[in-house]
């Protein structure tokens, strides 16, 4: 169980894999394989973590309170009863947001240093 006093910033920076998993779960509850597929939609098919590493990450993230397992519900489209579904927790959403902010500020820095073009220019 996560430490209730923990703030999202304690977990930053997130590993690349954790960030992508949280991103995939931001809209929908998914099972493991569906998470991988969703990340591949965002990232491209080169995203291909080892199955063992992937579940190892899920386990750790569950322990950190970023996500939780959810019972089958009608909210999930094309529900497969035989699989286990994961859902992002409130804490997880906050961590995701904090990490996204952190990344965004890094991207802004890159922009201000004119490494990438400024939006709209």
């Amino acid at each position, binding site marked *: 169980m996560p430490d209730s006093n923990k703030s999202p910033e304690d977990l930053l920076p997130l590993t690349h894999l954790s960030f992508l998993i949280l991103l995939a779960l931001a809209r929908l509850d998914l099972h493991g394989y569906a998470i*991988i597929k969703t990340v591949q939609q965002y990232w491209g098919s080169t995203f291909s973590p*080892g199955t*063992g*590493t992937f*579940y*190892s990450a899920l*386990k750790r993230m569950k322990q950190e309170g970023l996500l939780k397992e959810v019972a089958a519900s009608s909210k999930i489209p094309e529900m497969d009863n035989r699989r286990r579904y994961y859902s992002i927790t409130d804490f997880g959403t906050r961590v995701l947001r904090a990490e996204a902010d952190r990344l965004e500020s890094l991207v802004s820095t890159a922009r201000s240093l004119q490494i990438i073009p400024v939006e709209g220019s």
Partner: protein
Amino acid sequence: MRRNLDMRRCSSRICQLMLRLCPPDFREEFGNEVMKTHLDRLEEVWEAGLRARTSFMMTEAVDFTRTAVREWKNEFSSNLDPKTRSEVIDRETEMLGNIFKDVRYSFRTMLRRPGFSIVVVLTLVIGIGATTSVFSILESVLLHPLPFNEPDRIVALRTLELDDGSTYNVTINDYLMWREKDVFENVSVFGARRIDMTGIRDPALVMVGVFSDGYFETLQLSPVIGRLFSSEEYFPGSGYPILLSYGSWQRWFGEDPDVLGKVVTMRGVPRTIVGVMPSEASIFVQEQAWEPLQMSQTEPIEADWDNHSVNAIARLKDGVDLNSTREQIVTLAARIEEMYPDIRSGISVTLLPLNDWLTGAQLNQSLWLLFGVVGFVLLIGCVNIANLLMAKGSERFKELTVRRALGAHRGRLIRQLLTENCLLAVIGGAAGTLLSPWIIRLIIAVMPASVPRIDGVGLNSTVLGFAVFASIASVVMFGLAPALRSTSRRTGILAGSSPRTATVGRADRHSRNILMSTELALSLMLLTGAGLMLRSLGKMSNVEPGFEHNHLLTLSISLPQSRYPSGEPVMSFYQQLKERAENLPGITSATVRSFLPLQGGGFQLWRSFLAEGRPEPPAGDEVSGVPWNVVGVDHFKTIGLPVLRGRTFADSDNADGNPVIIVNERYAEMMFDEEDALGKRVRSWRDENIYREIVGIVPNVRFLGPTDQPRPIVYVPHQQNQWRAMILMSRVDGPANSAVAPLREILRDMDPDLPVTGILSMEDALSNTMSSARTMAILLGVFAVTALLLAAVGIFGVLSYVVATRTREIGIRMAVGANRSNVMNLVMTDTLKVAGIGLVFGIAGSQILGRLLQSQLFEVSPGDPTTLIVMSVGLVGIAMISSYIPARRAASVDPVDALRQE
């Protein structure tokens, strides 16, 4: 397609095994999910081609290993305080570092001598691959517990003939008695038969198990869906329920959960599906459905105490062992013997563990024997490697001496050498294990298909455990002695001298000779065993079954009662079938028969006979156990069996005609001795019980196969026994199977709903009867030749080394006058001595092996001198050939060079 499935199965098996490396908590929580995701992803890369698949599988394997390490580390460190944790990690790191160093060094050593490494690894691949493969078959067929709850408590019950120890089915009466006396927790009788079924996707002949109350209770299996039969349903008149097997549920109904209550038709009678059993239930004859054995009797019927018609299984009471239960049923059987001495004299009952009954004594023995044989192959391989390592140890003499002189501990050096050996064993063992699925497939391909549980053979954790054990055992067998020897104290004393000058000590030479003799003895044993089986198989193949079995095609037909209710439609169907078959261009004659010779199938009845005018038993003179064959017109012409005396069946031998019978010579002799049997009348006492006149006498045939002794056989006309289930036999001009398609066409035209099964040529039937002998001959042959090759390579290697170490000695001998042929003789005589000793022990050993094979030999004695002589001469020949090159090398030593070397 099948290959793809195999590869997928293989991959999922690997995934499962790798998962086992992870801590239990992780496995419990994520195991299933990991498997499913892995398989989904595999499915996805499958289409992308072999390269993508292989790369994915390898990446996954590496990733699983890393996951396992990471998870264990987490598991471990979560329970420790930070200080101890860092100490433990330090210690681990140092140890790992040392091991890593050793492994790296070993790798370099290995790569420096590629020839040596390849020979060792290949030897191990063969040895470990073969042993692991045979073990996995043994494990699946014999050792793996049956898939039932407490399988040790399930037994099979068999009638026991006290004279010869043979066993067969039990009677319903015995069953009722056991039940009444409450001997078992559950007991049940059962059987199986092929029944035509419609109302499923295609009409088919379906294997239907039939059992009495308590069957699935004995096995402790519950339906996947639905229910078992209720106790009323075991009595006639309470409906017709059936249970489906899991496979039938999948195939016919696509696992539809609403299958319960659906109706199918069996033998024209509608049956209601009440449940679906799990796949473990179809263990006896691959049953596809079950129906209750409906019995009106609840008490033994006096006349049926010798009607041994059913199989029986039982579950022992909790806490009661097999032997005391056996005593109990033997006492009961003795009481029955007293009560009915005329029919039960000399007959008792026995029980045995269910799996022993399923596999049978012969298969059991064959598998253990094969396991022993491959064990020998591995042993010979290890002896070879030990020899090579000893030789190599001497070559590395200087390196080890210097390292000791520089202060290396002996333990450290031994660890180094053992690491090298372990590395070889790991590579050889892993490659052997990876190879074993293919070896298993080859072995299964030559094994009879009837071996139970052969489908389940594969790599599981027990088999992998065994492979690891075999590899470690190999290292200990071949690696330890050389490692100890080459680091012994002597090494220090001889420091500075060259190994070439150190002539091989007497003890060394002794140990090497013993190793070589052992190899030769083991090889001779295996060769003789294989030779005996081959000779026996040769003799079997030369036996003629007694009729013209070539170009004879058979095809089973079972007419359903609903559409063929009485004799008239049945007979006209078969009459028409015969005519239409004979009109086909390739078919010269056709007939029908109820039960095929050479175990080709059909409905089997064995009856007792009594001649007219003789009193009934006990004072009677009956002949029992006679196969009752119902045959059509032209039967003897079609199978090519001449009628010796009298006549064959004619159209006039019909239901209105005089009851007639044709018998074979053996029957006539047993029934009537010297008297003429023709024209005499006999009856199948207690069954049909009408007198039939013997109208013809035909020659004996080998009814059950080449090893069967002539037995009494009778033939009765189909018109007087109008059976629905018959086998069409056709004599074909060309290859038997060329007639399959046109015959099927005719049958489809005559009755499209008719299931046709059992398409078999009599040549194949004959070949099937020899399949277990052939399997043993092939497998023993292959393993024996492998053993021989390994032994030959071993002798060659050892002698080459011995000659190299004796160069100086040989040089001196030549300097003082020995010529080339003297030197060659010297080496060859040594080999001959070794071979002689090997021969003596090998001959003794092959007597033992022959004895073990005895029950499978046909017209060959276990100590067959021809086999023994041929194999011994061959073996000595091979030994001499392998020593020839080293001997020539010795003879070409230049004495001046040899002496100048020091």
